[in-house]
């Protein structure tokens, strides 16, 4: 997933959690980058018509930005599901974050041919728990080690 897609996904999830425009600080925190780096990329997304930045309010995705962000989120969900269900990785959230930059959309699509994903994906993704709600449900049902 390229850097722009990682930003779009992060803005989409922060907007969901903050129920409104996403603050630059929250976006930077979500991506573990400096506010200056976040501002630079937000400017690029604005130029591409994917986001709008209103001073003192925050960043909102445009309709086009939302489409791309949901696509990126679906691919992220595929990576999480693949790690959790196929490779049985317990720390699938941490690993998905460390791998997403190296996993291209086409690779995610191929991995999708061996996982069972809900038809409502990515609406099943819970921003608070940073995972698909079905994965989180399975996790909470499993006894702790």
């Amino acid at each position, binding site marked *: 997933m390229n*850097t722009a897609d*990682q*930003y779009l996904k*992060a803005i989409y999830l922060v907007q969901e959690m903050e129920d409104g425009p996403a603050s630059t600080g929250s976006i930077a925190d*979500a*991506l*573990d*980058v400096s506010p200056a*780096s976040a501002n630079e990329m937000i400017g690029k997304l604005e130029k591409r018509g994917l986001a709008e930045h209103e001073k003192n309010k925050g960043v909102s995705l445009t309709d086009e930005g939302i489409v791309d962000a949901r696509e990126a989120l679906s691919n992220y969900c595929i990576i999480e599901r*693949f790690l959790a269900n*196929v*490779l049985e*990785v317990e720390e699938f959230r941490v*690993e998905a*974050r*460390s*791998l*997403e*930059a*190296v*996993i*291209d959309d*086409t*690779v995610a*699509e*191929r*991995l999708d*041919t*061996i*996982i*069972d994903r809900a038809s409502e994906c990515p609406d099943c993704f819970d921003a608070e728990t940073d995972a698909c709600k079905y994965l989180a449900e399975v996790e909470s049902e499993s006894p702790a080690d």
Partner: protein
Amino acid sequence: MSVGQRVTSDHQLARLLQIGVVLEEVVEARSTQHHREMDGDFDPEIAALLEHAAEESAEHREQLETLIAELDAESVSYDEIETLVEAQYGKTKPEDFDGVLYDQLCNEETAYKFYDDLIEAIEGSDSSFSVDREQVLDTLRTIRAEEAEGVEEVTAVMERR
């Protein structure tokens, strides 16, 4: 979340190589399913292409498994991936021979892109691994070159049809 492509640890490298193994296993298993589905009624050229792709995938898998073992990690069993491919095949199967070729083209292109990104991510990192970095890169570059040839072979067959 880490922004940018870099491989920084043995664990991350082993995980990415495991993903490579799975992609190769998906190619093998889907090819087997295509044969079953078409009930042996294959154009000889497509049959040869799929057979060659499956053999090459098995070789790539063995090469990746050697590296994974050297990283003291486990590979992913073919049987497990074959079962998953079979379970989901109904939803994703190609409709006809052209669909089979297109599926094969996606396999080759995806594998090429995966190895290309992985090589870039290793080259972009100054971390040291417990396996020889050049050995890993040599193996991945060889596999990537064969995937590129695979894309050309499938494209040539598609153009002739």
